[in-house]
């Protein structure tokens, strides 16, 4: 298989923590412009997989390629982020002592070195993009609120907004609808599908309604390896998946 086709290519990736194999010969391919939902019980290795893709954890073995020839195992978080992989955490992580607007200012793509930041002056283009994102994430009236004072759902949206500001090629979204109302969940699904028009996306989620809402290919992980892959209906009718979720 050629390494230049897909946006993300994992092959035979393993990582162990003190003897415990969190990821075990995991292989996964994401095509350009694809959205993929990843499900799996606790401890299946979903978050560790994201750690590996974003450079937080180095795999013990295996290949991880991004956008053709870029070997992600050779780069650290900041480099990978600059290449165009954005990540939303399971627990919403925003800069709580900053306003919503400042959170977005720090996320906007652009030069990431010290001196430009020191002498930065906001351009009209940047102001327009911030306005756009605030509109999309429905945080327009919270522009000057400290992020610490947002509700849980609003923080989730702010983090998605920060991802948008970063404008990455690939988005890794970890449990985006945890703590959201049904209406908000639907809204989020629509937003993600929107984003998927122009970006590749991996979504990790437990909420099956949400996954159904997305209507994309599903990969089920178990014990650090792919258990089953296909449409949601296919995966959820897979006996092994039922075994893992419901017990023997």
């Amino acid at each position, binding site marked *: 298989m050629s390494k230049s086709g897909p946006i993300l290519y994992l092959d035979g990736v393993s990582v162990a*923590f*003190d003897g415990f194999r969190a990821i075990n010969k995991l292989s996964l391919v994401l095509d350009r412009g694809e959205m993929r939902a990843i499900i799996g019980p606790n401890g299946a290795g979903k*978050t*560790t997989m994201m750690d590996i893709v974003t450079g937080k*954890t180095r795999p013990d073995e295996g290949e991880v390629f991004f956008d053709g020839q870029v070997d992600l195992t050779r780069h650290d978080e900041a480099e990978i982020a600059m290449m165009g992989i954005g990540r939303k955490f399971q*627990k919403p992580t925003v800069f709580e002592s900053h306003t919503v607007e400042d959170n977005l200012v720090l996320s906007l793509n652009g030069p990431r070195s010290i001196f430009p930041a020191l002498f930065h002056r906001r351009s009209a283009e940047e102001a327009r993009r911030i306005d756009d994102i605030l509109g999309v994430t429905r945080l327009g009236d919270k522009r000057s609120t400290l992020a610490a004072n947002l509700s849980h759902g609003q923080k989730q949206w702010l983090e998605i907004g920060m991802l948008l500001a970063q404008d990455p090629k690939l988005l890794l979204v970890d449990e985006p609808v945890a703590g959201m109302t049904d209406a908000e969940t639907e809204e989020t699904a629509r937003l993600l599908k929107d984003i998927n028009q122009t970006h590749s996306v991996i979504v990790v989620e437990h909420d099956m309604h949400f996954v159904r809402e997305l209507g994309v290919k599903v990969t089920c992980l178990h014990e650090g390896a792919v258990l089953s892959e296909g449409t949601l209906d296919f995966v959820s009718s897979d006996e092994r998946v039922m075994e893992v979720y419901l017990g023997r």
Partner: protein
Amino acid sequence: MTESAPRCPPLSCRTSPPQGGRSAASTLLLSWQRWRLAKVGRPAQSPPKWGRWPAGQRGARQSAVFAFLFLSLLGVFASPAHADEAALRPIIAKFAAAKNFKATEAVVQELAATGDPAVERPLAALAEGDLYFRKSDSAVFIGREARQAIKLADPLTGEEAGEEPKAAFTKIKVNNALRRSIRDALGGLTLGSPDANARIAAADTMFKTPVAANIEALDAAIAKETVGSVKLKLEQARASSVLVSDLPEDEKLAAIDIIAGVGSRDALSLLTGYEAGAEGALKDAASAAVASMNSTLALWASAQNVWYGLSLGSVLLLAAIGLAITFGVMGVINMAHGEMVMLGAYTTFVVQNIIRTSFPGLFDWSLAIALPLAFLVAGAVGLAIERGIIRFLYGRPLETLLATWGVSLILQQAVRSIFGPTNREVGNPSWMSGAFDMGELSVTWNRLWILAFSLAVFFLLLFVMKRTSWGLQMRAVTANRRMASSMGIRTPWVDALTFALGSGIAGIAGVALSQIDNVSPNLGQGYIIDSFMVVVFGGVGNLWGTLVGAFSLGVLNKFLEPYAGAVLGKILVLVLIILFIQKRPRGLFALKGRAVEA
């Protein structure tokens, strides 16, 4: 050259002196030894115990001396007889008449020639310049000056003989040459002593200053000797004598083997000296022996360094182990940890003070009494700190650091106000004093005890953590606080008691450290940075890491010291740790895992 102390304790030498017609034997032995010494030319690195003699006065009477010496030494063993004090006193009295050093030396030689160990006391006193005679009746005394008066003692028995004005006495003068004669005379007196240690000492002397003429005497002594260890020493002395004799080559080769087997620095210098003058197969054998001994001695030197390092490591372990609990298990940075150590040391001081004034007989038990008290005192203070301050600061490690630093200032000043700013005297019980040799290692008892103690504390703690229900609760709380709490574990109490435990252990560390360090209000500060280094280096949250960290830092420090000096060595260690933390931010034995923080 000031060495004057005789090799055997006075009492043991006196009991039953061998005696015979050893007239002038010691003296002659002396001059022979000088001559050998000058010829062999001992290398400079040997301990300067006997010094190097000018080659000028080698005797022309060598051959006569041989026979004489031989006979007289034989006589020592052949016909032991007892001389009583009465025979010695007239000779001692001659000191009063000796008008110059030469005359005095003649008396010394006459005394030595009696071979009676009882002469040791007056000779030693003479070498110290403590021998006097009364102007009025020329009676000779050992005297000790006390202001205007002089305290008198009998020159033979050492019994006190009152105090008299100084002006009535004349000191018998000595010079360095005379002191040497005296010292050497004392050394030669003891080969036939009934005391095994004295014989060993004599054999050692002969080993270091070999004379071919000694061989027969040594042979005789070896034949008679029943104690294995003494016999070995005698054989070694014989071997060194064989080297300088005219005996055949194969005997000498065997002698080289024996000397090489001794392995001490003295043996090395003997052989090095011999190698320089030897030829052919003997030279080769000697060179080989020297080479192997050099490497052995280098090994011993490393072993000594390892020992020093282990000793330092045990101190570090003691200081750090309590910290390993509070920092590793609870994540609390306790900057007052060093002050807990200090409190333990002061507890020891108080206990010893009470014992000194009220129960002097219990002094050897003072540390045993201080240990539980120190644990309680430091533990109680720790408990108070946890309940009063730290529990409000959990999850804010940097603030905990600042608050406990404040506590440490308060504790230091409190101790300074109560006990004063100066060092306090804490004594070593008898079983912790002194030192012993192990091969070429010199080991002090207090360091050895502290090493044993630190290991005992470590394993006790390990036992508490792994095998008791309290330890189980502690580990449960560490692993998952909420879960532990919902299982019915009273987590606040576990926190408090864990902190108290860590502090208490610091307290008992203080008891041990009071034995080797100055007990002052600043005691703790000296350990805090080192202990943190140990814990961080070893890996936080892992007791074994602390053990390995403490000992490896200790040994590393001591190995750097010879090259870099003590201070620079310490700086280097600090720099190395700083670099090490860069490489492994979580220490040697860090747990790996998917970090919880996002």
